């Protein structure tokens, strides 16, 4: 453990010995199902300890410490903003106070609540836009994926971000993995995120039995609970229209307002047939959407689809040709990256993302890049409409994993807590962050003034849940900078921010960062933005 001014830094959960790679820790708040290999904020994915290797553990879901209480932000009246999808302003999202993040009925809201009427001043947040408005050409959307841990923090963090950044035009969204929690739980969760314009219940086609990737896989109870998962067609077999409709209706039942095609991984060995199949799923979706629902073509790809010119051209040709859908939701499987919270370093993959985003911008399509974190944010420079992120590694990147084996019974090395540091455009260890924060002037390493970091400074120990909220807020702040710029100036802005981050890294005292946490991606980003 490191210390900060005499304050011990430790995970607020205390220590929980893992039984071994095949055991699952139960959580009081989780159901009795295994909820998968979700990483949560502040813990490494896996790393070598001396000469031994360690397996990935399985982490409990929703590890919210019931003894941790949020510090109320304000004792004054609640700040509210209308939710546009109600049309008549009857639904309001609470942006401050103990009810922050929740939706209230405008007609029955307390007289002490202060409604937002002026969208122009910075202090007055804009209404939460409809999904269609949030995905209109030129808009910027940040989607936060429901994490395995600290999921309960998300509604508050989103509300805070909306309150502080909506004036820039930034829109927020939430995406929850549908099969892992089921329709009812997902619906409840999506509804709790009142500040989210876009609500996605991701059908996770790539996780269904027999998928090319199937990672993270669904557990048996999850598969049994999700009808379309159990009925999923075998790999290489076409999906029926009925099955596609089943997937769509499940999302609808889960409260989604942006509906996706299933998103099974496209086999690059059979591109024409696979794209045809994906196109047929889209046709079913377009026939099924009603009212204000927004359809999105959800494609799941291995990286070579963006790297191989032949595959890329065929994919992009199909995307452009289907002008009956305006939203592209494209999830790409990254190659292994050995660094925790590392961005992809493959230049060819970045170039593929660049061309994809530029094509989307040229065609006035909304390109959403789920599970891409800072790399997704980078793609805003080229015309992507939005990206998905979150407080954990899994929410920030969907990538091949480094398999590390352990000796059964061997103790797991202590978790390394990490902090999202937007000045470096990187996630670093809390220890490194605190060191930089204490030793460098604010002009060099700016302190984060978000409410969560303020609470963190006043807390007796480092609280990972507050840092999870900070990570969401910090990404929203970066996204808001982009949203505030006209489209034609976003590239220059991001290029400048990347240059500043690189310059900051170059100025850091030697050994400020562990070798495992150097922001290697910045050099590549600077080169591709040059």
């Amino acid at each position, binding site marked *: 453990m490191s210390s900060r001014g005499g304050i011990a830094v430790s995970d607020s959960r205390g220590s929980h010995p893992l039984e071994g790679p095949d055991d699952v820790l139960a959580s009081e708040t989780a159901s009795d199902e295994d909820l998968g290999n979700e990483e949560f904020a502040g813990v490494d994915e896996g790393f070598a300890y001396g000469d031994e290797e360690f397996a990935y553990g399985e982490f409990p879901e929703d590890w919210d410490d019931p003894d941790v209480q949020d510090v109320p932000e304000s004792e004054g009246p609640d700040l509210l903003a209308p939710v546009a999808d109600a049309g008549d302003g009857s639904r309001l999202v609470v942006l401050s106070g103990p009810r922050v993040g929740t939706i209230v009925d405008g007609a029955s809201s307390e007289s002490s609540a202060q409604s937002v009427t002026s969208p122009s001043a910075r202090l007055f947040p804009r209404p939460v836009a409809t999904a269609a408005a949030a995905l209109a050409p030129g808009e910027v959307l940040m989607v936060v994926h429901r994490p395995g841990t600290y999921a309960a923090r998300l509604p508050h963090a989103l509300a805070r971000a909306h309150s502080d950044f909506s004036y820039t035009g930034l829109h927020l969204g939430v995406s929850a993995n549908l099969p892992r929690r089921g329709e009812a739980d997902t619906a409840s969760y999506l509804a709790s995120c009142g500040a989210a314009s876009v609500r996605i219940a991701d059908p996770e086609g790539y996780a269904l039995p027999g998928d090319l990737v199937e990672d993270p896989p669904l557990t048996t109870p999850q598969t049994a609970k999700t009808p379309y998962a159990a009925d999923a067609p075998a790999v290489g077999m076409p999906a029926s229209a009925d099955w596609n409709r089943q997937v769509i209706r499940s999302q609808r039942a889960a409260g989604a307002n942006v509906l996706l095609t299933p998103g099974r991984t496209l086999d690059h060995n059979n591109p024409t047939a696979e794209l045809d199949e994906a196109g047929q799923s889209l046709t079913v979706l377009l026939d099924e959407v009603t009212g204000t629902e927004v359809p999105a073509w959800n494609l799941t790809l291995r990286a070579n689809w963006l790297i191989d010119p032949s595959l890329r*051209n065929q994919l*992009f*040709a199909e*995307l*452009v*040709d289907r*002008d009956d859908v305006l939203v592209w939701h494209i999830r790409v499987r990254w190659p292994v990256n050995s660094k925790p919270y590392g961005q992809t370093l493959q230049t060819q993959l970045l170039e593929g993302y660049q061309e994809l985003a530029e094509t989307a911008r*040229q*065609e*006035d399509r909304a390109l959403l890049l789920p599970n891409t974190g800072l790399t997704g944010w980078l793609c805003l420079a080229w015309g992507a409409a939005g990206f998905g992120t979150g407080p954990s590694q899994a929410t920030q990147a969907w990538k091949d994993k480094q398999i590390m084996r352990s000796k059964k019974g061997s103790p797991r090395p202590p978790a390394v807590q990490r902090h999202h540091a937007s000045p470096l455009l990187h996630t670093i260890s809390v220890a490194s962050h605190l060191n930089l924060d204490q030793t460098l002037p604010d002009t060099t390493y700016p302190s984060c003034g978000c409410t969560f970091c303020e609470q963190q400074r006043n807390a007796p120990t480092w609280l990972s849940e507050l840092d999870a909220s900070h990570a969401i807020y910090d990404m929203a702040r970066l996204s808001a900078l982009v949203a505030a710029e006209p489209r034609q100036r976003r590239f220059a802005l991001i290029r400048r921010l990347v240059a500043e981050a690189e310059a900051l890294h170059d100025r850091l005292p030697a050994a400020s960062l562990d070798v495992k946490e150097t922001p290697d991606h910045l050099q590549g980003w600077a080169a591709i933005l040059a």
Partner: protein
Amino acid sequence: MFHADDVAAAFGGPVTYLGTGSFGETWRLGEQAIKIIHRESSERVAREVEGLGRVSHPNVVHLLGVDQAALAGTDFQVLRFEFVAGGDLETALDSGRLLPLEDLLAFLTGLLSGVAALHDAGVLHRDLKPGNVGLRSSVWAEPVILDLGLARLLDMSSITAYPAQVGSLMYMAPEQLLGRRVRKAADIFAVGVLTRLALTGHHPFEPPGRPLQDISQLLRNIETGPVDLPLEVPEPLRALLTRMVSPAEHRRGSAASCLREVASL
């Protein structure tokens, strides 16, 4: 070719022969252009032209109806179109006329708008070429797309059997030449080629003095890139017209995105 008297008798009025194209003969009957389909079944023709009835746009020839007519003892499928007076791009170029620079934007906008209307109705033309682009009242600014959507009926065997159709190859996108799936981008490619041809009088992938020997050479030239446009053409338009003939389909852009770009100029 049918005798004019037989055609006139079949349709009840004086007719003027306009020409023979990929699918049959075209005759003028008053303010209509009658296309007599030589070789296809009524079902296939009806199926292929079904979408055309949904298109109503000033830059797309109006399909008036689908009929049958008895000629020389045989029933033929007949397509009735509006007659677009003023000739077509082919006759204009043959007479030495070139697209003036001041009409470039209007010509390109008109063609792209017509293609966009077709695509919005779910119709791909697939056979855009100089003979299929009318100039209403001989005005460059009013191009009209003719011979709609029948190109799906065109296959390589028919090209072999009907040499007149070989001319279509020069305006086909590389994916068409290679027998691959044809998307809307193929029409964009053709518009790019036609516009460059109209401006310069030369095919963009057949350098002056170096006639093409075969399709393989055409494909190689497409990969290499088109002959440069005159410098008098403003750079943004030159860039767009180069992008539109890119071998990579997605780089050509959709009709809608090309129109947006033209509108911004």
